[in-house]
């Protein structure tokens, strides 16, 4: 397995702290502790691309160059970061013009980029490199009785990810099943959560969030598992607003890594379970009581 440099991205040090905490805990529990990429910078996300393409690619490529210096691939938990970094890698390979401009810019600060660094998502690394079997063996507290709706969001399956099916992705399903939990059929696995529109155009974003939550509820899910901090933000933090507008029972939103962490026996505190606005504790306690 090629060395991985952990690229948390900006959200994971802010609103997405629980994702950062739980990922580090899970990888440590599996004997592969994460090493953070030194002095990484923001990938640029969708906003920067909306203003200046060249600068957006330069910004993202600095991270690729830093990883290349360490001969590592980037472990990228945020969907948006994953997409931006993969898109940058491909675009620089395909476009001689942009490739030239970006290399020139990297050159100006003594960096180089030959194009061998890939962005890799934890789902991919956990299912392909570490393997579901190894995870299964490491499970200490099987999550029997917990019903989970797996939500992948958009940018991880479209348009660049090749490690999973873009209509019916399975990697998170496999990981969650390995914990002993039940994965419910969820048709909106890859629908958009509204991204930053919840903040910029609340009436638009909230409806998208409502549909996702309502469907999960209707499918009998106890929790909704996510893989992206922006999805988490929308589904969790905005849930109270959604419930003010629509009739909806609360449903806690957990990062898939938090769920894996619980199964691996990591204490809830270390997984940031208490960082959910919609508390997951009642659901988890109910399940534990039921299982006992």
């Amino acid at each position, binding site marked *: 397995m090629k060395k991985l440099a952990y690229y948390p991205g900006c959200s994971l040090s802010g609103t997405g702290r629980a994702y950062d905490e739980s990922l580090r805990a899970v990888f440590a529990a599996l004997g592969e502790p994460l090493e953070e990429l030194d*002095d990484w910078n923001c990938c640029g996300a969708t906003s920067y691309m909306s203003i200046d393409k060249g600068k957006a690619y330069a910004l993202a490529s600095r991270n690729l160059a830093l990883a290349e210096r360490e001969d590592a691939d980037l472990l990228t938990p945020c969907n948006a970061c994953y997409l931006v970094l993969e898109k940058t890698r491909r675009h620089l390979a395909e476009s001689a013009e942009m490739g030239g401009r970006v290399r020139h810019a990297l050159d100006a600060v003594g960096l180089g980029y030959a194009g061998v660094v890939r962005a890799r998502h934890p789902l991919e690394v956990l299912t392909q490199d570490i393997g579901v079997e190894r995870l299964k063996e490491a499970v200490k507290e099987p999550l029997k009785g917990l019903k989970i709706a797996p939500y992948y969001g958009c940018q991880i399956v479209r348009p660049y990810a090749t490690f999973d099916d873009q209509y019916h992705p399975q990697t998170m399903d496999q990981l969650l099943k390995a914990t002993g939990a039940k994965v419910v059929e969820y048709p909106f696995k890859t629908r958009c959560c*509204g991204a930053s529109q919840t*903040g910029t155009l609340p009436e638009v974003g909230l409806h998208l969030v409502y549909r996702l939550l309502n469907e999960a509820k209707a499918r009998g899910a106890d929790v909704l598992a996510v893989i992206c901090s922006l999805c988490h933000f929308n589904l969790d933090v905005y849930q109270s607003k959604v419930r003010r507008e629509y009739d909806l029972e609360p449903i806690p939103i957990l990062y898939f890594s938090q769920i894996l962490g619980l199964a691996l026996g990591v204490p809830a505190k270390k997984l940031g379970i208490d960082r959910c606005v919609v508390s997951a504790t009642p659901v988890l306690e109910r399940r534990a009581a039921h299982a006992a």
Partner: protein
Amino acid sequence: MRPNIRTEADRSPEFARWITSLPGAEKIRECMHCGLCSASCPLFAYMDYSPRQLMHLGREGFRDDVLGSFTIWLCTSCYQCTVECPRQIPVTEIMYALKRRAIEEKVYTPHLPIPVLAREFRRMVTDRGRISESWLVMKLLLKTGVHRMFGMVGLGWDLVRTGRFSLRKETIRDRGDLARMLEAVGSDAEAVS
């Protein structure tokens, strides 16, 4: 309200040439108007023109209709349209290009928070190399109307309560390097109108 009739004088051949010269966008000439982009778009419900109509207006050169459309600001880059399009039109990338051009030409609705977010985002990344989400949100609210902030109070408290609201200003070490890089990469030729 603009009258629902257009003459040839409303068309900008330059705009049509520009849009079809974007990478992959020559394919919009092959659009067969199946509407997959529109029907698969999660934000369609709020759009004035459907993505399909926007592509068509673009290839016909109706610059003002396209750049003035709300649609381009609603795109969240979920790439569903790009993946679905039977004629492989890179709709999402075209949306990006349209946003860039609209910002460049300053033709978007004032007070529309999306371009403001984009600009503030850029400023913060350019200065510090990373985004401090709490600061970004606050700036956005200040720039686009204080009234929104009141609705956000409960939300902010939720974040503080769960330890997710941080006023720390995130930054990278080699800020000088980053600035030099962004300078050296030059500006986009595409944006020239």
